[in-house]
């Protein structure tokens, strides 16, 4: 009797030790599989069909028609190019400024908490609110930015209808929201750099600028790579900023001439304005391929860079 109970307890114990870890990580993988992985795969299947928004259960096989249509569609190439240019316009200045900001925050500083919290506050603003405010600041006739520019003799810029102006304005929303966040990531990494590396560099006669380039930047390299990856992903899915910047009717098409339509907006336009879910899925799949391409290029660049140093 006692022996039997002992055996059962050992068995239960072993079952617990073996099984519990899987039970603990299971919720993550189940939810991810159901709502992220499965849809991602299913997207490719849908993209081979004609599916309309009003009749989602009717799927008509069309093979690669959606893909060839997308390839021949000027709007796709336009959106791809816009996604790229807005991505560069927002990511490059954002990360450079974050690096500079982190460097400043890394000094011995009075009120450092204030500066850190201030830098992070835009991160707490929703895309909706931020885009609304910036749309107003960038207004052509009474916007504050044109008013400031007029003080230094620059004529009113039509931020909404001029292609590059619109893309710059949209990028500035992204930059505003994310610079502080990235700066804090850099700051955390900078604080983990051992101090003796700076001492060694100083003994070797390196100036502050040289120390920044030769000690700080290499010291936080993997964080920089991490932020590049994150902001690249963010840039490929840019959606809310241009949508709201277009102020309603022009939002979905990315301006009257699609001058700032991103792939995210094109996806939405195809699916929820033109009611063609199959085509929307094709755009999604194209975005995925684009991401993979970006990562491959980024990896190659990184490898070349590491070999050189």
């Amino acid at each position, binding site marked *: 009797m006692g022996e039997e109970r002992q055996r059962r307890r050992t068995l239960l114990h072993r079952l617990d030790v073996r099984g519990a870890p899987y039970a*603990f*990580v299971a919720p993550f993988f189940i939810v991810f599989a159901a709502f992220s992985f499965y*849809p991602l795969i299913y997207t490719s299947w849908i993209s081979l069909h004609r599916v309309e928004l009003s009749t989602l259960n009717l799927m008509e096989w069309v093979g690669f028609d959606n893909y060839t249509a997308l390839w021949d569609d000027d709007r796709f190439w336009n959106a791809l190019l816009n996604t790229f240019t807005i991505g560069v316009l927002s990511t490059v200045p954002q990360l450079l400024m974050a690096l500079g900001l982190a460097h400043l925050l890394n000094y011995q500083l009075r009120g450092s908490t204030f500066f850190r919290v201030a830098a992070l506050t835009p991160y707490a603003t929703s895309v909706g*609110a931020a885009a609304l405010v910036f749309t107003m600041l960038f207004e052509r006739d009474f916007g504050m930015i044109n008013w400031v520019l007029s003080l230094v003799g620059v004529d009113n810029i039509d931020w909404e209808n001029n292609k590059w102006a619109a893309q710059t304005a949209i990028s500035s929303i992204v930059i505003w929201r994310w610079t502080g966040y990235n700066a804090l990531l850099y700051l955390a990494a900078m604080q983990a750099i051992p101090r003796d590396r700076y001492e060694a560099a100083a003994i070797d006669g390196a100036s502050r600028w040289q120390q920044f380039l030769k000690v700080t930047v290499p010291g936080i390299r993997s964080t920089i790579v991490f932020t590049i990856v994150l902001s690249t992903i963010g840039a490929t899915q840019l959606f809310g900023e241009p949508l709201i910047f277009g102020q309603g009717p022009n939002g979905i098409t990315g301006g009257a001439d699609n001058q700032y339509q991103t792939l995210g907006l094109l996806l939405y336009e195809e699916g929820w304005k033109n009611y063609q879910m199959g085509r929307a899925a094709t755009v999604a799949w194209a975005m995925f391929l684009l991401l993979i391409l970006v990562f491959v290029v980024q990896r190659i660049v990184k490898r070349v860079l590491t070999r050189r140093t």
Partner: protein
Amino acid sequence: MTTDSIPVQATDTRPGTTRKTSKATPSGERRRRLFRHPGAGRQHHAGPVAYILLGLAALVSLFPLYWTMVAASTDNTRVTQTPPPFLPGPHLLENLGKAWEDAALGKAMLNSLIVAGVIALSTVLFATLAGFAFAKLRFKGRNILLMLVIGTMMVPPQLGVVPLFMMMTELGWGQKLPAVIFPTLVSAVGVFFMRQYLAEALPDELVEAGRVDGAHSLRIFWSIVLPIARPPMAVLFMITFVHAWNDFFWPFIVLDMTNPTVPVALTQLSAGYVRDQSLIMAGALLGTLPLLALFVVFGRQIVGGIMQGAVKG
């Protein structure tokens, strides 16, 4: 993809937080010495130039929010004049009230509160469970599974949005909150974040001691892990709450104006053909206020949390 560039074992460098389990090793001693100085690694004191630049950065960060308040407190004619107003006007409460009604913000706020609250709670719970398993329990395939978790951070939610929409329609969840909640119940960043913390802060001996006393895994989790993990759980809760509150793309697609979250409701304000700018700004202000309040109270902790979760060089 580039996951291998992320070192799984990151050094803990939380500034300003006292470590509950400081080891008396030389390296621990050294590390603590570094903590005392916020500018560890760089001894230089900030000069006037640094303060001016930082002041400018703070100004740029905060000005749009201040100006939202200014614009929300004037009327539409004043806000569309040049030069634009720089000081608050007398109409703040009136505009807030009107925006509240026009954009149905009452319902939107409640919805956002439910959505962000449920998502933050479940993310914290599941992230702590999984983080504990990855940090302290031994099982086959642990490293591969952890790499998978990190890898999933790279998959943008947009890619699956079409089938997800079809799934939700089929489930009858279209325009309903579960459609927003369920896909976001867990977060890879959260799992990684908790793993990093527990790997350092939770001594192996404590888990072993629990085992020796005959506690089963869930019991160990409940009585040993949860009390120790409380600070990072609070941080993760706030970060997740902010994210969920601000999430736009998926709620915009799956919800409509009859049952929106705050960011979705805000688009309503700007989409009209007759546009009242002060009213739009009042709405934007209302939608941001809860999070700003969170930042005023917990700003320091959120900053510390983000830096703690960062990938170290």
